[in-house]
């Protein structure tokens, strides 16, 4: 797993993808920080973070599209599968590598916290909860992207499907209540970004954490099963 993690990280930063991801995220989140914190004189970092979610919906798929699709297209998958490593460690190594780049993007927002701490009155619980939510949400997004990267050899197809799915999930999160109970429940189940609201309000609920971890585990599991199934069919 370590070998895969290191190789994927190197690949992110020998190609422009890693820089583009972090750069674009830093630019947009910086813009929101300026708008919602500096200009409006608010000390609430969760507002620009919440606004950045839509950018993540578009950016994370760029990060994950190549993870497995590229291995399939270039036949390097055969090297991984014939090596003494389990499919789980292949999938987790790749997931972690993408999470490291994602984490790198999060780090670019730390200066904002410092600025708020110096010039405002930070609510630490809220800030920490927001970051935790952001991290868990990223884990979810990356897992979903990893899965869709494993269903095709074509990175563009992986990209488009992942954006489509994440966008649908994002839109489900901002949908007004429908009045039908069952439908509301289904929507709240698929609305991955919807759960972020609790975190940004500084509410740490076990239910939300478990939800994010479950969705991530589900998609990693599907990725592994998908790869294994292809060997059997």
């Amino acid at each position: 797993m370590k070998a895969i993690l290191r190789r994927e990280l190197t690949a992110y930063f020998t190609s422009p993808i890693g820089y583009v991801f972090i750069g674009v995220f830093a630019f947009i989140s910086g813009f929101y920080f300026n708008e919602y914190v500096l200009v409006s004189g608010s000390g609430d970092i969760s507002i620009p973070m919440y606004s950045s979610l839509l950018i993540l919906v578009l950016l994370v798929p760029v990060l994950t599209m190549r993870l497995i699709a590229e291995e399939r297209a270039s036949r390097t998958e055969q090297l991984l599968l014939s090596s003494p490593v389990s499919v789980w460690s292949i999938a987790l190594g790749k997931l972690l590598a993408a999470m490291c780049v994602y984490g790198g993007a999060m780090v670019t927002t730390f200066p904002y916290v410092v600025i708020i701490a110096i010039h405002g009155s930070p609510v630490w619980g809220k800030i920490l909860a927001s970051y935790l939510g952001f991290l868990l949400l990223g884990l979810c997004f990356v897992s979903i992207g990893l899965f869709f990267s494993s269903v095709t050899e074509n990175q563009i197809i992986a990209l488009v499907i992942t954006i489509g799915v994440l966008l649908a999930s994002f839109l489900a999160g901002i949908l007004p209540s429908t009045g039908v109970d069952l439908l509301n429940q289904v929507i709240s189940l698929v609305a991955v970004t919807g759960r972020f609201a609790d975190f940004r309000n500084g509410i740490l609920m076990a239910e939300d954490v478990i939800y994010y971890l479950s969705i991530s585990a589900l998609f990693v599991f599907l990725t592994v099963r998908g790869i294994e199934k292809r060997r059997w069919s």
Partner: protein
Amino acid sequence: MIEVKNLTKRFGGKVAVDGLSFTVDNGEILGFLGPNGAGKSTTMNIITGCLSATDGSVSVNGYDVLDEPNKAKRSVGYLPEQPPLYLDMTVDEYLGFVYELKKVKLDKKTHLDGIKNTVAIADVGKRRIKNLSKGYRQRVGLAQALIGNPAVLVLDEPTVGLDPAQIIEIRTVIKELSKRHTIILSSHILPEVSAVCDRVLIINKGKIVAEDTPENLSRMVEGENSVTAVIDGDSETVIAAIRSVEGVTGAELVNDRADGGEYLIKAAGDVRRQVSVAVAGAGGTIIEMKTNELSLEDIFIKLTGETEEVKANEGDTKA
């Protein structure tokens, strides 16, 4: 060393490998010979653990590929048909990655340097793989298979796409490697297999058609020789003269050329001298004469008796 029992692989309804059984002994080089789509790569993918078999079992170095996949995989180095290279890495980075991936315990620098010298890529260590020529890429692929010093090497068409000089180089390397490894090698070129292998397995449509030493296989088909000759003279007289030679089983005019007719002569044994005398006696002039090298297709037709089908398949691939 390698034991394959009743191996079967179905892709949907299509049977790719059909009840294949064979063993490879320690230190042996086994050649897999067969046309494209015969099931060579599928079998190799199963032996190396990239694919799972529908039925049957494979054990490598005493470890079953299904029950103890990691131990079995540690004993195998695999060079797939398309070398599994990360084009954006340098050769050194790539080999370092494979070293870590395979969890090799040997001293890294000594081990990798040794391999680079064996396959002659020491001079391109710092270059990116995407900038290397096909021949170098193939050698990097081979180097990758050697990492961890596996007991078994599985090489899928190691010389495909290389120029003649590179083919000879790779063959030399393989022969050198055979001193320390058990090797399975696939090819669809007969001379290649006969040049390197101790034993040849001919497979077609997922089944073993023949299994023997290269010498014996050649001898099996030696019974029927064919000669192509360009002869100037009246075709009927010439054919009659050729047919009168003892051992000739058939003669026909295949092509009318400006300098004479082109004839295909089939015979048991070498009849070139006799044909030459007979044709001259009948007033014909031999412009050109050569024995036709037996190709894989000839052996196939001979061994499978599937003349029509093989020809039909050929037509398919050309279309």
